[in-house]
């Protein structure tokens, strides 16, 4: 081979392996934590319902944790999300681990074969995730009601911040952007084209920061659940702000 084909490292300002290593650590940690939470079988304290258990679904004849009836939707949504696909293709599968870094695995089918061809069904997970999001908004509103009276506690703000971040993530999704208007060629001649154009324009800035929403909402879900569990264990109290 000629010398010009010899791989040579990309020269970024940070080591190329740092980002994939951080991604693997955080995502793996989240998967372990989410599994542990789901196996607990409960996650509520007063008017607070852990996002891992919302909406509450109990099927008496099948004795499994209520979380399992729900978690498939947000988990599947994230697993097929275009941003997370980039993250895990790079970090877990090294396809590529970083730009310009040589790959050792020669067989590559991308998203043309099982299992990754399933990622093309992302839109169906989006529909399910939007349904879950509606329940999370209801939970966030409930988090401002204590014994029938409206109030603001630290937990209320955490629930609100979480659902805002989840909304930014879900409604900034590429499939949602496609659904609201991206699938049109001609806004001016489509039925409701102007409204869809404005929707598409509104979703586009959210989509531009999809990675931001993806990570912050991942952390906020964990933060809210941890907060609820600390309250359940009476380790902390819930400060009243208003």
């Amino acid at each position, binding site marked *: 081979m*000629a*010398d*010009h*084909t010899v791989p*040579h*490292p*990309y*020269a970024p300002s940070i080591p190329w392996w740092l980002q994939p290593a951080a991604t693997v650590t955080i995502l793996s940690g989240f998967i372990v934590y989410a599994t542990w939470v789901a196996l607990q079988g409960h996650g509520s304290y007063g008017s607070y319902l852990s996002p891992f258990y919302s909406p509450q679904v109990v099927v008496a004849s099948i004795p499994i944790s209520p979380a399992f009836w729900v978690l498939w939707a947000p988990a599947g949504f994230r697993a097929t999300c*275009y941003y997370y*696909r*980039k993250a895990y*293709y*790079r970090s877990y599968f090294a*396809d*590529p681990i970083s*730009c*310009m870094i*040589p*790959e050792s695995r*020669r067989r*590559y*089918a*991308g*998203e*043309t074969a099982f299992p*990754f*061809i399933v990622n*093309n*069904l*992302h*839109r169906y997970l989006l529909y399910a995730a939007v349904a879950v999001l509606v329940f999370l908004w209801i939970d966030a509103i409930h988090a401002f009601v204590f014994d029938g009276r409206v109030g603001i506690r630290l937990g209320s703000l955490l629930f609100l911040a979480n659902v805002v971040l989840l909304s930014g993530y879900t409604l900034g999704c*590429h*499939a949602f*952007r*496609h659904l609201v208007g*991206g*699938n*049109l*060629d*001609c*806004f*001016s*001649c*489509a039925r409701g*084209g*102007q409204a869809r*154009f404005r929707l598409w324009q509104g979703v586009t800035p959210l*989509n*531009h920061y*999809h990675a931001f929403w993806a990570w912050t909402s991942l952390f906020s879900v964990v933060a809210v659940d941890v907060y609820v569990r600390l309250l359940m264990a009476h380790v902390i109290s819930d400060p009243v702000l208003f």
Partner: protein
Amino acid sequence: MAEARFHVFRGYAKHGDLVTYQVPITEGMVVLDGIHYIQAHLDGTLACRWNCKAAKCGSCSAEVNGRPRLMCKTRVDEFGARPITVRPIKVFPLIKDLVTDVSWNYRVNQQIPPFTPDANDPGPWKMYPEDVERLYEFRKCIECFLCQDVCHVLREHEGMDRYMGPRFMVRIAALEMHPKDTRSRTDLLKGSGGIGFCNITKCCEEVCPEHIHITDNAIIPLKERMADDYFDPWRALLRLFGGKKEPRGT
């Protein structure tokens, strides 16, 4: 006068090596200036493709210190005292020194069905801003092929027989989203276009000198359009019982 040390690839596909040159640094100097200095003063046989020297023709693509870049847009002072290594773009066959054969791209381009307006609507057309806003970005492409060079499907998996590469996803997106184009290219995308091979790792976006959001605004919307036609059972049912396929945007 301060000098920069250039390591420039010299040779052919079967043999070649890096050759070191000392080049005087001038204010505002770019890597292409250094290459020109070498040609003019040190070795007139150095082969390099260039044209506008204004980051608009896309001719002077190379790998500068391991990153695909336009030599005319890469300042020498950003490297400080470090040597500057210039190699040809790896993904295309080498002709000589820094010049590669990019003709594969032109052959791929010929496979893409051209703009096809409605035969019964020959124009002149009234174009509305909301319909063409998305297309401006795609028109910025200067065909430097840096995105093709960095794409791991082409670069690492030798996927030129399976995937057209990011540049042509941008071109197909510009045609697919055109309000007056009547042709669907999703069959091409799923077939010989090979869009499924792209796993959206966004390296193409990182190197684009025109800052085109290749993945977010071209490849992913095309993947969604392909999913509309091939991976959406609900739409398939609608098509089955709804009869004729409704053109987009009508």
